[in-house]
Each structure stands twice: as structure tokens, then as C-alpha cells.
């Protein structure tokens, strides 16, 4: 049986289209309304409320907690101050990415790690000889993302405190009508936003309070389809979609290093040992074979392919998650893994893996598109990530 999240008593009745999807053994809403369009716009225009409880969460505590995490992830955990959050990948000993997530320093010796896949065993394997307790808090911690330009004012009203001083990728302990919550200035939308972490047993009052206070600000429960559009615009990759975990890849060529995923900035070579360090040092020296970039499909090119069969362009309203070939001349030089028509930017965009210099900004490529049952190629250009990067995200 699939599990229901701690918010299901509220999200269930809201889901008028009965559109659910699986996430880590739970069911979460794909969209609450019949179409996800308004939920997407809430992320960019007001405040969207997303149930992200299915995330895997681990609390790592003890004298060696920082040491353990610093050994596992590629960012420098030792340098993190209390209240800081860091986005980071982690690798196997060959320097291939296993997963990506966030590390939050709750206090000197306590951290929370979020992950897309189960990570309990991997943490234990790396903790040999360390004084550290690893708790799987996945089920006991409920989580909500409140994302959008009005998320701050809604939370400020709710917690009766200012939040402008809570900087990007930092967290603070607060309470929502007597329920203790951790508020982190994080998210998966590339917009101003927060994530709330709360004891699963006390989850519902937090949802209710958010809806209560947020209604005057058009707070809108949003599902995964809306989130998927936002995360593509934000250039944020998704494990199992945009890359394959080194722990799951059946063949070597499916694995990626952080450098090949545009995450070189998150690999801190200067810190001492961490898993994969030697392999990553060698790769850094020789340069990655692949690049992870944005591409934008040329609209006129797409329109003329459709015009040739007498149709206006047709694109799905939701983001797609399939591998699509990219060409330079006759040669296939890469593939796109997620893409969407951006309702905000009015552009057809995708996240792509490209070989070597084909990933240089502005490079012209062709993307395979299926027009009226026939495979065609449309002009596309390598574009900087993120596609959409508003000042409010960090301000």
C-alpha cells in the first residue's frame, strides 16, 4: 500500500481531479485543480503551498556529526555555521553522483540531511568508528514548501516575526500558533520561498494556519505538475530524471560526476578526505566529458515545422521527462532530459546533457521533435541556467 502524508486529511478533499502521483512510497497531488496552470502561476505570483513530506530526511547528531557529513557530501560541512543550509551532491568512491539534497546545521552537533533516495545505509557505512547517531526522520517529520513572492509576508503574519533577515539558504526555529516549526529559506522553484519542517503528529494545525492567514494573499495548494514547470525554469535537476544515481545505474555510462552535472561549484577540493575526492581531482584536472546546460528551442523553427503540416505548434502543458536526442549536424552530441513550455518566459526550454564544447553558451544544435507522428529536428541554442532567476529569490 502507498502511504498518505501527514497532510492527506487536508490535501485529499482538495484534489478535485483525483490526480495523484507516487513519490517515495507516498501519494502526493499531481494537481489539485483540473489543470495545474493556476498552481504554477501561484508559485510565481503569490504563494503556493506544496506538501513535500515524502522527502527522505535524516537527522545526524553527535560529536562526529559534522565529520561524517563532511566525509559523505562534496560541500564543506565543517565551514557551515549553525542555521546555515547547503545544497550538495554526494558521490561514490569513483566520483559519480549518488544523490543530491540539502544539509542543514541545526546546532553545533546536529544536522538534517534531505535526500531523494534512501540514504540510511550509506550514512552508516561511512560512520564506522565515529561517535554519531543517525535517525531516519523521513516519516516523523512532515514538510511543506511555501513558495512565491508573497511567501514571506504570509509567514511573517503567521509567525508574528520578521523574516527579511533570514537569508537565502538559512534556517530559523519558530512557532506557528504554538506548534514548533523549523523554517528554512529554501525551495525547489527558483523563487522567493521557504520550507517548513514540523513534527508529523502536529502537521495539520500548521497547514490550517497557513491557509487561514494565507487566503487574503491568494495562497494556493500546488501539486507536482506545477512544481515541475517551476523547477525546469529554475534549472534545477531531478534525480532519476536528469541523472541516474551511481547506486542505481546498471551501466557505467549512465553515471555522472558533479562536474558533468554543472555542480563543480559544489565540490570543495580544498577540504580533506571525502568520498570520491581522488577521482574528482583527476576529473577536474582533465575536464569533464559532459556538460549539463539549458537549451532553448527556436520558436520560429518549431512553428514552421508545424506550419508545414498545417497545424499551429502543439506542446504539452506539463513538463516532460523523457530523453530527447540533440544533434549537431548529423552527429548526436547529447540529449535533453526534462523540458517544458515556460508559461512565464513564453519559451520552449529544456535541461540537457551535451558532449564537451557542444555545451558552450550560444552553441546551435537541433532537438528532435515529433510533429504529427514524424520525427523532425528544430533549431535550439545552449542557454545559461537558470532560465528564470528573479532578484527576489535571494533578496
Amino acid at each position: 500500500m502507498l502511504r498518505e502524508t501527514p497532510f492527506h486529511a487536508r490535501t485529499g478533499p482538495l484534489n478535485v481531479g483525483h490526480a495523484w502521483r507516487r513519490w517515495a512510497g507516498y501519494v502526493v497531488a499531481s494537481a489539485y485543480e483540473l489543470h495545474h496552470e493556476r498552481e504554477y502561476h501561484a508559485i510565481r505570483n503569490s504563494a503556493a503551498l506544496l506538501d513535500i513530506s515524502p522527502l527522505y530526511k535524516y537527522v545526524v547528531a553527535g560529536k562526529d556529526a559534522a565529520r561524517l557529513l563532511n566525509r559523505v557530501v562534496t560541500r564543506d560541512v565543517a565551514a557551515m555555521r549553525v542555521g546555515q543550509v547547503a545544497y550538495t551532491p554526494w558521490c561514490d568512491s569513483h566520483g559519480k553522483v549518488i544523490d543530491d539534497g540539502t544539509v542543514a546545521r541545526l546546532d553545533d552537533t546536529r544536522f538534517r540531511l534531505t535526500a531523494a533516495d534512501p540514504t540510511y545505509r550509506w550514512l552508516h557505512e561511512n560512520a564506522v568508528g565515529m561517535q554519531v547517531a543517525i535517525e531516519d526522520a523521513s516519516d516523523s517529520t512532515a514538510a511543506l514548501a511555501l513558495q512565491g513572492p508573497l511567501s514571506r509576508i504570509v509567514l511573517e503574519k503567521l509567525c508574528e516575526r520578521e523574516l527579511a533577515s533570514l537569508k537565502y539558504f538559512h534556517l530559523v526555529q519558530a512557532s506557528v500558533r504554538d506548534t514548533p516549526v523549523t523554517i528554512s529559506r529554501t525551495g525547489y522553484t527558483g523563487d522567493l520561498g521557504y520550507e517548513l519542517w514540523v513534527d508529523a503528529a502536529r502537521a495539520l494545525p500548521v497547514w490550517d494556519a497557513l491557509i487561514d492567514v494565507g487566503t487574503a494573499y491568494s495562497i494556493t495548494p500546488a501539486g507536482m505538475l506545477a512544481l515541475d514547470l517551476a523547477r525546469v525554469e529554475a534549472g534545477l535537476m531531478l534525480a532519476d530524471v536528469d541523472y541516474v544515481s551511481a547506486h542505481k545505474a546498471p551501466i557505467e555510462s549512465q553515471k555522472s560526476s558533479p562536474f558533468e552535472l554543472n555542480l563543480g561549484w559544489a565540490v570543495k577540493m580544498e577540504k580533506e578526505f571525502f568520498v570520491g575526492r581522488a577521482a574528482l581531482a583527476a576529473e577536474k584536472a582533465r575536464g569533464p566529458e559532459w556538460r549539463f546546460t539549458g537549451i532553448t528551442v527556436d520558436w520560429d523553427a518549431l512553428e514552421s515545422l508545424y506550419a508545414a503540416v498545417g497545424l499551429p505548434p502543439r506542446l504539452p502543458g506539463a513538463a516532460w521527462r523523457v530523453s530527447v536526442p540533440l544533434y549537431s549536424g548529423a552527429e548526436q552530441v547529447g540529449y535533453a532530459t526534462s523540458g517544458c513550455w515556460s508559461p512565464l518566459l513564453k519559451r520552449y526550454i529544456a535541461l540537457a546533457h551535451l558532449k564537451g564544447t557542444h555545451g558552450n553558451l550560444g552553441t546551435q544544435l537541433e532537438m528532435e521533435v515529433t510533429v504529427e507522428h514524424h520525427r523532425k529536428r528544430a533549431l535550439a541554442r545552449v542557454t545559461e541556467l537558470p532560465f528564470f532567476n528573479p532578484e527576489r529569490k535571494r533578496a
Partner: protein
Amino acid sequence: MTTNRYDAIIIGGGHNGLITAAYLARAGRKVVVLERRELVGGAAVSEQIFPGFTFSVFSYVVSLLRPEIIRELDLPRHGLHILPLESTVTPMFNGDYLAGWGDHDQSRRELYRHSPKDADAYDEYGLLMQHMAQAVRPILAMLPPDPTSMSPRDLMGMLKFGKHMRSLGAQKFNALHKLMTMSSADYLDEWFETDVLKATKSASGIIGTFLGPRSPGTAYVLLHHYMGEIDGVFRAWGFAKGGTGGVSEAIAGAARRFGAEVRCNAGVAKVLHSGNRATGVVLENGDELRADTVVSSLDPRRTFMGLVEPKDLPNDFADAIARYKFRGSSAKVNLALSELPRFTCMDGKDDGLRATALRGAFSISPSMDYVERAYDDAKYGEFSRRPYMDIVIPSMIDPGMAPPGKHVMSIFVQYAPYRLNGGWTDARREALGDAVIDALAQFAPNIKSAILHRQVITPLDIERVTGLTEGNIFQGELALHQLFFFRPAPAYARYSSPIQGLWQCGSGTHPGGGIMGASGRLAALEILRQG
């Protein structure tokens, strides 16, 4: 003091003027935009007329803003966000309503309630209209050729136009011919039996015209609705974040980023020309600015009968401009509300449905006779006692438009003739406001007690504030005799004018109308093409 020498001077900071400026600046030209008012936007402005409440004072929805403009000028980077406006609810006199929802199945079921036949016809009708829109849309992006000219460029243009028409095939061409010539009432009668459906659909065909739903020529405007539809997920119509001023601000931001200078409080008094060549402008304050390219985004009458002397123009051109029809017929009422309106037709419906309805439009078009009678009043010089109204509540879509829990309501009103019997006075303006509120209160009785502030804008007010002649929201009626190669005058439909170096880029040129921006963009491209 900056230098007063430019490559191009743009007169008027409405959306088309700003778009032309942005494209010219993007191409490296030294450009200045001169706006008479203290803020840019023309008829696309957002203002806090009442503290804390932001009104899209005039134009209130973004109909067909071209996606290529959004992309090419990178407008989202400058804050442009177009939000969907999904539904239309028409309250009826019997207490029921007709709704068109965002979801196809939901809309079909709703229409089925009124007429099972119409529910079936709706999809067929929609497909035909999409075909028609597809047929017409390329023309919107086409530079109008001069059908009487023998120049190779015009001949090529006519050939392209003719080829496009031929490519439609007989069935579509015939349908297009009907759309171009019939009244929207007659056209819709061929398809549907539900009166309130036809009334609501036909109402979209009369916006901005001095015609009624039973007047020939109104069917064409029905198509404009479907231009947005064929864009499907790519659609660029809806409600702009921050109101329509948000569109203007974003375009101004893009123009500035490309290096254009945007000056407010800089009304232009005259276009300067030496012989037949434009040389610059003189401002109302007496300052002179020089440029070989002067582009007016004002309407044709203000440009050619105000900024230049008609005696400096060829007679036939001056006559054509003098005869070009404006006849403003629309008014606007903007309300600041202490609470949401309660439409009695939605009483007893579930909260979700009512909220959805309030995020969409309400059309006060309960019957075809209601709309035609509204026109009858105007025909004889009165404002409609029971007007057609298109109502949106922007604060339901963008909560930033009003304080939390409070709302703004935008009411587009038709008909209110520019030439009112006895003329517009303060008292007549308020009488119009009363008629509008009374008509609305029939369907939403709490509206009167919810009003915190009321702003009534007559066609004369539109003219006084924005400069639009006779308050015509499209810079001249969207009637067939004023479209394509006739807009605004034969032989000058390609943004040029009889004075060399003096160009036009406003809605008074092809394709015109709405916050589409195509005129501004096509004008800029034509100016750049000419070197």
C-alpha cells in the same frame, strides 16, 4: 542637460511607442521616448486612484500581446507576468447563469445544462473558429502591401497575401467571407440556440466599436477571441501582474536596458520638418529635439491633424485621416471594494466554484435583446440605461492590487457614446456610474454597500487623459474599411507617412487594437529595414 540630437524620437510612451523604442534601441539606435504624462503606458497604466488600491485605469486585460515580443525584449526579466483569466460567468435574469470554465469537460457539462445540442455544436464551432483564426493570424504579422501600387515589393506582398488566401481552400475561404461580412448575431444563430450564450459571445464582437451585435461586420471580431485560443498553452492573453501598467513598465524597462531614454512630462507640440523631411520635434515647453526619424505612436488624427499642419500633407491623405472613424463607445468604472461581490446566481454553489468564478470574468449580457437595446440607446446619443459590462476582479488574480481581504473591480462598460446628447458633464458622468452600479446590483445586490471608492471614466475622460481621439480604445474602429491596407489610410499602411522620416507605430496602424504590440514591433522592423 543631455544632448538633444537622437537617431529616433518616439512620440508617446504607450505600449506601442515603447515597443518601437525598445526594438530601435536594441538595434543600436539612439532613441528617446517622449511621454506627455508623468507615467508611461498610455492607456495601459496602473494607478493608485484610491490609497492602497491599484486600478488598471483604462485597458484592463492583455488580449494578444505577441509572444515574440515577450521573448525578443526579454520582458519577464523586467517583471512581466501574464496570469490566466480562465472563466466567464453570465448571470441571467431568471436567477441562473451560464458559465464557460477553464476546463473543457466542465464547460461542456455546463452548456449541456442549457442545451444538449449547443453543447455538441460548441466543439465543432470551436474547431472552425480555430481554423479561421489560423487563417487570419499570419495576416496580422504581415506588412500590408499597397494593392494599387505596381512596385515590385507591393506586387510581391499582394502575391503573398493572395497565395495565403488561396491556400485556405474553398470551405475555409467561404467561412472567412461570412465572418468578414455578417453580424455576430446572425453568425451565431447559424450555430447555437441558447440566447444567453449567443449574447455573451456576440458581446465580445462589439467591444470598442459603435456597432451592435446585429450590425453587419461584427462577426469578424469574434475571431479575435480565438486568436488567443489557438495559442493554447502558449497563450499570451490574460491579466498582467500589477495591472496593465505592469506591461508598460516591463517594456519601458527593456527599452531602457537597450539604451533608450524615456522622458515623462515631455509632451510634444509639433513635429518639425524641413520641406518634406522630418527633422525633429518641439516640446510643449519649447525645447527642440532633433532626429531624422520621428515616430508617432499617437492616433492618426492627433499625429496628422495635431502634430503637423494638414496643409503640409497631400489632400487625399489629409481627407482620409479626417474621415477615419473613431466614435468612442466605451466607458470604464473602477471600484475599490470592502468585500467581494455576491452574485446571487452563484448562491448555494460550493465555495470552490464561487472562488473560481470570482477569479474569472463576469459578463453582463443576459440576452441578445439586452445587448442590442444597450446599443439602441447609444445610436440616438444616450448612454445605455442597462449597459453591457465585462467585469473582472484583478485582486482575485493578483492579490497585490488591493489590501489583504479587500478588492478592486474593473467594469468595462458599453455603450457610452463620445458624442452624448447635451455633452458630457460631471453630473452625466455620475449618472452613468449610477446606471452601471444599478445594472450590476440586479445580479450582485451587495455591490452598493461594498464600494469604498468609485472612479467613472467616460470616453471624453479617456480622450482628455490618454489623448485617444474621441476616446476610441483602439485608435480608430476595428472595422473592415479601416483594417490591413486601409489602416489608417490607403498607401500609408506600412507605418510611413507623406512626410519622409515621420513614421507611425500606434494601434491606428495595422494590425492595431488591444495590448498586442504588433504595430509597434512591425513599425520598428520597417524603420530598420529602411536603414
